[in-house]
């Protein structure tokens, strides 16, 4: 069978000593930084990107993927132990996970989070292996109109599902598109919005924006707030969940995986949506919903599986279509480009070792995470006690080295500083930065495909509605917008996305 051959080939790539080592470094660094508060997966990957420059492409991608799910995972550890979500998706885990920890059941909570994530990771590895190749086949038939419609759908989905205010999120997408224009126009060779600065004719690097907004801006923001962290210092004892725990968690894990995988394939949706949805469903299905919020293990098992499934399935559109499904995936594609590989459906056929090796490594990485996290949880707890006043200079040092190493240019650091200030302004004005980053990455691609599509159709804009695949994307885009402005959904969304979430 093809699937098996492909997977075996993947494992043969992922199981070389070199790739295993990079996978380990990735999940280790990811967990390490994910546990630290105030820095999410996006900034972590942006910061650590230079580490992969001198590494072969397969190993580089394996390591970055490891950092990604390691950071996700670290986020839930802090959610359970200190009620502090390392990233937005872990907000849900705080609700019941922290309650479990307070009842002395931190061990089972951590264990079930690990088991759920591992299960979700395994299922999603299979899903990618099954659906990746046929999707890439379809994608090879895409022309400019299809790409444009698909990206439009992704951007709208990203905006609609990102925050609690659709107008602002859409506005930020447009902001990103406009920022993406800076640089030389590919069609005419004209420098646009470069203000006569030669460095700007190459455009702004997306790492500059990511680190500027998500690392530097975040530091300035955090320093404005008073530091309050009640570290839960009790020792974690009794890691093993009881039989009853496992039984109660089984279906939530399966359902969470399903929800996460489904939402994961849609470009634009973040892992937070997956974990919130899973939590809501578990609460609805529970015999006694009042237990939720008071340490129900289902409230940890479901969302944790969902967010891991979502994170992993984001690789499907990213790898098969070459379109980043989230801001983090945009960084992954950026890494691919730095390695000299053009992202797109052809990656699978031209670089099978990269595709299948990466998939196999995800499963291995998830297994490593279980081993790394359960016995070593004491170490991570210790890390939590590092005060922020020591942490942020270190984050700054690594960020600065990372930025400088991209182009060996001090100019990038000046830009980063500017985006740090802009990032702070956005945060204070309640503008969600994640849709902006996606718009920024997709902007140039969208413009190019729009121009090409209209050139082929001789300026006839109906081309987007007469080709079946493109029409499908357009209808889906319209549906997303319609559903989200329906009053019933609107009220529900407000409830989901705003449980006064700590940043």
């Amino acid at each position: 069978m093809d699937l098996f051959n492909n997977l075996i080939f993947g494992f043969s790539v992922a199981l070389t000593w070199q790739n295993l080592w990079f996978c380990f470094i990735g999940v280790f660094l990811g967990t390490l930084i994910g546990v630290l508060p105030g820095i999410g997966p996006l900034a972590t990957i942006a910061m650590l990107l230079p580490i992969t420059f001198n590494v072969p492409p397969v190993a580089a991608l394996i390591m970055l993927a490891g950092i990604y799910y390691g950071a996700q995972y670290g986020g839930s550890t802090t959610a359970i132990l200190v009620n502090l979500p390392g990233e937005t998706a872990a907000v849900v885990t705080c609700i019941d996970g922290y309650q479990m920890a307070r009842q002395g059941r931190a061990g089972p909570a951590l264990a079930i989070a690990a088991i759920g994530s591992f299960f979700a990771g395994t299922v999603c590895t299979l899903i990618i292996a099954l659906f990746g190749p046929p999707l890439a086949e379809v994608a090879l038939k895409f022309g400019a109109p299809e790409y444009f419609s698909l990206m439009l759908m992704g951007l709208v989905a990203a905006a609609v599902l990102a925050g609690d205010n659709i107008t602002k999120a859409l506005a930020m997408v447009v902001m990103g598109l406009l920022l993406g224009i800076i640089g030389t126009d590919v069609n005419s060779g004209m420098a646009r919005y470069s203000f006569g600065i030669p460095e700007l004719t190459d455009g702004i690097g997306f790492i500059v924006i990511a680190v500027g907004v998500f690392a530097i801006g975040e530091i300035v923001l955090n320093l404005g707030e008073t530091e309050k962290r009640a570290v839960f210092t009790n020792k974690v004892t009794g890691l093993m969940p009881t039989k009853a725990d496992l039984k109660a968690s089984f279906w939530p894990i399966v359902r969470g995986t399903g929800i996460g995988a489904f939402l994961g394939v849609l470009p634009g949706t973040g892992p937070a949506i997956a974990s919130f949805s899973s939590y809501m469903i578990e609460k609805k299905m529970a015999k006694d919903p009042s237990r939720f919020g008071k340490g129900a293990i289902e409230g940890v098992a479901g969302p944790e599986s969902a967010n891991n499934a979502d994170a992993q399935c984001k690789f499907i559109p990213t790898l098969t279509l070459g379109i980043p499904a989230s801001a983090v995936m945009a960084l992954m594609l950026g890494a691919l480009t730095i390695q000299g590989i053009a992202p797109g459906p052809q990656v699978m056929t031209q670089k099978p070792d990269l595709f299948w090796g990466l998939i196999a490594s995800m499963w291995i990485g998830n297994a490593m995470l279980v081993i790394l996290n359960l016995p070593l949880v004491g170490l991570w707890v210790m890390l939590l006690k590092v005060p922020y006043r020591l942490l942020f200079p270190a984050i700054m040092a690594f960020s600065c080295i990372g930025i400088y190493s991209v182009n060996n240019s001090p100019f990038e650091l000046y830009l980063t500083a500017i985006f740090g200030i802009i990032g702070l302004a956005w945060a204070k004005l309640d503008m969600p930065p994640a849709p902006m980053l996606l718009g920024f990455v997709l902007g140039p691609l969208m413009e190019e495909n729009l121009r090409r599509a209209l050139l082929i159709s001789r300026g006839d804009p109906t081309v987007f509605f007469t080709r079946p695949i493109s029409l499908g994307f357009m209808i889906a885009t319209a549906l997303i917008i319609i559903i989200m402005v329906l009053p019933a959904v609107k009220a529900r969304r407000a409830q989901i996305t705003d449980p006064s979430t700590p940043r």
Partner: protein
Amino acid sequence: MKFDWRNNRDFFGGLMYIVTGAAGWWIARDYPFGSALRMGPGYFPTVLSWMMIAFGVAIMMMGFKNNEKIKGNWSIRALIVVPLATVTFGYLMEEAGFIPALLVLIPFAAVAGREFKLVEIALLTVGLTILSTLMFIKGLGLPYPLIKGWWGY
């Protein structure tokens, strides 16, 4: 509640969009617009700039309605020090080398915090500099002079 624009979050948010959009439109006037069939380099930016202005107006209207204030505290010190430290690092990497750049960056950045303990920061600075040198220069082979003109290149 009386409308007060001075601390109105969405008023300023909308204003930011309108100003950005207007600036974007103003600059893009010089770029050939073209037609839908053959879009010039000015087509996309101009359309986006108008969208920015439209969103700006919409967000400003929200501000008139909801009167949300800008939340949280500010640290003016952090706002000045953190970007300045970033810029200094870039400058020193170019002029002085990897080690001096880090030796300046870390304590400089630390000043942005509320607490500054001299011994602690000194240890952090030395420790992080050694670690970064081993990791990035020795380990990953990034080609930067450790101290310019003296050590490295």
